[in-house]
């Protein structure tokens, strides 16, 4: 009886193995990287899941999902907590560097109303360039020390640049360049890959469970999540950049965070921004 059982198990394992091979080869068939189709499917997933939420409202994160929070937020927005940061950002943005140049010299349109075009793919460098990265490169090109990607100075600068771009829809372009498509694909893979001791992917919270509670918080949908950046988090008693948000997300799922503005994070931002194309910039935002 016992031997027979082992024999049967072995056969089952063999058959299972063959089936797995077949399945694996079917999956391994080269998928065409099709960002446009991805974005459409991504947006459809959210609009189907939340038919009561207006499309433009997804940029308001948890407030689009919870009536009570929305009321509190609307009141808060009359006197928003990011106001000090915004003002500081405006001042810093206009202050010339040691060499007399300003941030406006580094960006198209003097840096105003351009947030919706970042991140973009730099074909010369062959990599994704985010707004935070571009700001620090601007500083370094003008002989200034770069800012920390997770601190207030960077947040106030991006807050001001986002504020001047409010209402403009995300317009992320993926040029017909295999490296750009690969960067997008890498970002997508990062987004859907589980990691850390809690075995969470970005999608676990922000695709599978938006609107649900995680402890006392209501999870924001991934769609439009970057449109509101940077954000004032009451929990942080301060502003947070996109870099800070990503690093904190990783450590909260007990994964080891990457270096801010590492290739993976840049690609992730590229993917996430691209699939939110068409949604208006609403940053700086305020979150509990």
């Amino acid at each position, binding site marked *: 009886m016992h031997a027979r059982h082992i024999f049967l198990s072995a056969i089952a394992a063999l058959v299972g193995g063959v089936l797995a091979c077949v399945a694996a080869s079917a999956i391994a068939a080269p998928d065409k990287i099709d960002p446009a189709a991805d974005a459409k499917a991504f947006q459809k997933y959210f609009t189907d899941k939340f038919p009561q939420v207006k499309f433009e409202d997804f940029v308001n994160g948890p407030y689009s999902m919870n009536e009570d929070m929305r009321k509190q937020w609307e009141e808060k927005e009359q*006197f928003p*907590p990011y*106001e000090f940061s915004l003002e500081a950002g405006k001042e810093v943005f206009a202050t010339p560097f040691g060499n007399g140049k300003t941030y406006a010299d580094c960006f198209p349109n003097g840096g105003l109303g351009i947030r919706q075009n970042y991140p973009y793919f730099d074909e010369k460098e062959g990599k994704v360039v985010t707004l935070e990265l571009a700001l620090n490169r601007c500083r370094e090109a003008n002989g200034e020390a770069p800012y920390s990607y997770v601190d207030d100075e960077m947040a106030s600068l991006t807050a001001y640049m986002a504020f001047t771009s409010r209402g403009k829809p995300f317009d992320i372009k993926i040029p017909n360049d295999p490296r750009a498509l690969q960067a997008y694909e890498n970002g997508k893979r990062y987004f859907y890959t589980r990691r850390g001791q809690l075995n969470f992917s970005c999608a676990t919270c922000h695709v599978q469970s938006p609107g649900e509670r995680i402890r006392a918080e209501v999870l924001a949908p991934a769609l439009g999540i970057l449109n509101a950046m940077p954000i004032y988090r009451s929990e942080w*008693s301060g502003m947070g950049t996109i870099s800070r948000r990503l690093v904190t997300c990783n450590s909260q799922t007990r994964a080891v965070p990457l270096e801010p503005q590492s290739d993976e994070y840049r690609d992730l931002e590229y993917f996430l921004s691209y699939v939110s194309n068409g949604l208006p910039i609403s940053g700086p935002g305020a979150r509990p």
Partner: protein
Amino acid sequence: MASTIRVRATVSGDTTEVQALIQHPMDSGFVKDAQGQIIPAHFIQQLTFEHGGRTVFLANWGAAVSKDPYVKFSFKGGAKGDDLKINWMDNKGATDSTTAKIS
């Protein structure tokens, strides 16, 4: 430097609604910095709103109030164009004040 106080006061009927946001670290004295050193307590102790020589709101604050505090209250009286004087003093003796027009 710009004022640390933002105020908005609006009349509706016989009450004036006041909202204020104050920029202040409000360090409790119980938090350590990245080097493990205690960040000394630094918080607003007294906040006053004056209208026509009368104190309409007085707060005695301590370490438990959060950073960049926000206050909202309303009082009877007040008319469009009246001055509202706001003043705070912290535990290090620093102060700031501003005067807002009720609208």
